[in-house]
Each structure stands twice: as C-alpha cells, then as structure tokens.
C-alpha cells in the first residue's frame, strides 16, 4: 500500500481497516439449500434429501458450495441485504463506478459443516485497501472479509470479497 501523492486512501479509511460492521443473521433452511443447489444444477442428494445427507454422516441437508444462508428480510427495517454490503462506513471515495472483483469462500470442515437448520451470524470487516492503475484508469481495491459463525459458536466459513471502485 504505497502512498502515492494522489492517493484516495484517507486516514479515516485506514482507521476503518479491521473494524467489524454490524452483524447479519442468516438462516440456512432445507428450502433454500435446495433452491440454491437446484439453481446451480447440483445433482448430489446431500443438498436435497435429508435422509441421504444423514446417511453420509451430516447433521442435515448440506449447504451447497457458495451458499452461506439467507439474510432475514424485513421490509420495515430495510434489512435483508447480503452481508458484506458496505453500509455507512463513514468515509467517501471519489470514484463513481463499482465492480465486484471476485469472491473466495473458505470452509472449516473440522469445526463444522453448514447444514440446514443452522443459524449463522456474519460480520464483515475491511481487511485492506490497494490502489492501482488499470485499463479503466486509477482504481481503488477494497478487500473485505466476512466471518460466518454458527449457532454453536463455531467459525464455519469466511468469505473474501474484492470491491473495485474506479
């Protein structure tokens, strides 16, 4: 993170690194595990059939790769956005365009596997900023990390997201 003279990274932004945002509660249910798996095209019965999943040693229907639960939607509170959304971070960036640069999912199967019936708490923090000059011009890359903890207090997954503003 070199400090170019024209850097858009401010002290406020540096102070925001590592600060966890508000928690989001996500529900992992049979209906949404199946819907997610169906929409991807999965065929493995562990994502659909509770008896098959249990026969393979899981607590219930397994959450398919990339599915970390559905945020609780409530029109009254405007909630229901995916965890990892920025919200009011208390800083502004002089770029108007935003791209989702990519997403990585990390699982911790030794701790626990996410299954239908789980309630997951997710918290997102900024892990760093980078600046670069690409074909789109100068850009700010924001790296974010969301930690997913299940109802037994086990960290079951992390999501690493890259946001590109230019």
């Amino acid at each position, binding site marked *: 993170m070199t400090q170019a003279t024209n850097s858009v990274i401010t002290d406020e932004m540096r102070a925001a690194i590592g600060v966890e945002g508000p928690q989001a509660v996500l529900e992992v249910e049979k209906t949404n595990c199946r*819907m997610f798996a169906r929409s991807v095209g999965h065929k493995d019965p562990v994502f659909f059939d509770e008896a098959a999943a249990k026969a393979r040693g899981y607590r219930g229907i397994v959450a398919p790769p*990339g599915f970390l639960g559905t945020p609780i939607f409530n029109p009254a509170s405007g909630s229901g956005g995916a965890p990892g959304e920025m919200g009011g971070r208390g800083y502004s960036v002089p770029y108007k365009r935003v791209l989702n640069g*990519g997403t990585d999912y990390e699982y911790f199967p030794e701790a626990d596997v996410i299954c239908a019936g789980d309630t997951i708490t997710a918290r997102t923090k900024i892990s760093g900023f980078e600046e670069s000059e690409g074909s789109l011009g100068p850009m700010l890359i924001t790296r974010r990390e969301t930690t997913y903890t299940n109802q037994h207090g086990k960290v079951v997954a992390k999501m690493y997201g890259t946001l590109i503003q230019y």
Partner: protein
Amino acid sequence: MAQVYFEDIKVGDEIPQLKKNCSTQQLVLWAAGSGDFYQIHYDKDFAQNTGLKGLIVHGALKNAFLGQLLHDWIGEKGQLRRFGCSYRGMDEPNQDILCRGVVTKAYADGGNHFVELDVWTEKPDGKKTSPGTAVVTLPSRS
C-alpha cells in the same frame, strides 16, 4: 463417479470438466436461490439501460459452478476447503460456459492431503471469464 484419491493425482492434471449453459430460466432460478434480484440478469431493457448489450450471467453463479465442479470431483470423502474466482469477463445466457480446473500443488500436512488447483470458467472462444483458485483435501489410500 468413483472416489478420487490423493495418490491418483499429480500436478498438471486436469480434473473432469463441467459444461454449463444458462437459460434465462436458470438465471431467474439463481436469483431465487441466491437472493440476488439485480435486474441486469433477467430484464433486458434494464440491462441495456445500464450500457450492457443484454442480459449477463451472475458472477456468483459462475463461482458456484466452480463449487460444483470441485464438489463433484472430490467425491464423498473429499472436502472443499477454499474456492473462489475473480470476475474478469461477462457471460451471456444460452452460451456454453466451460468450468475447468488444473492441479497446481499436492502435499500432505498434519494428516491431511491437500490439493491446490487453478479453476476457471471459459467461453467457447477459450477466454477465461472467471479465473480462480481452490484448495481441497482428498482421502489417501495409505
């Protein structure tokens, strides 16, 4: 599919490919499954008003395809530890999306047998639209 073991693979091996082709219906199914109802994936007029040529496939869906590619390969005894990709290019509905993976590293650590891979989705012309990496563990025959 037969279970793949750590001893069966070596660096440079390509894993079995997964071919996808998203109908407009699949994009709406994905909206339902993921909760991402952004209109550029199912409303052509909306997509064109944002400057796109037409509907595009959700990046996260291509990421989930890579999840399926890996899940189907590692079998019942394998474990998916990490996977993901960057979103570098757009894919359109009704066009083939080929999901691929190549082993880049294989090692044992702490009783687990790790395999690292480069994974990606590519268009019919070979352009990689979603390059990424993955880490899985496989069972060992020993």
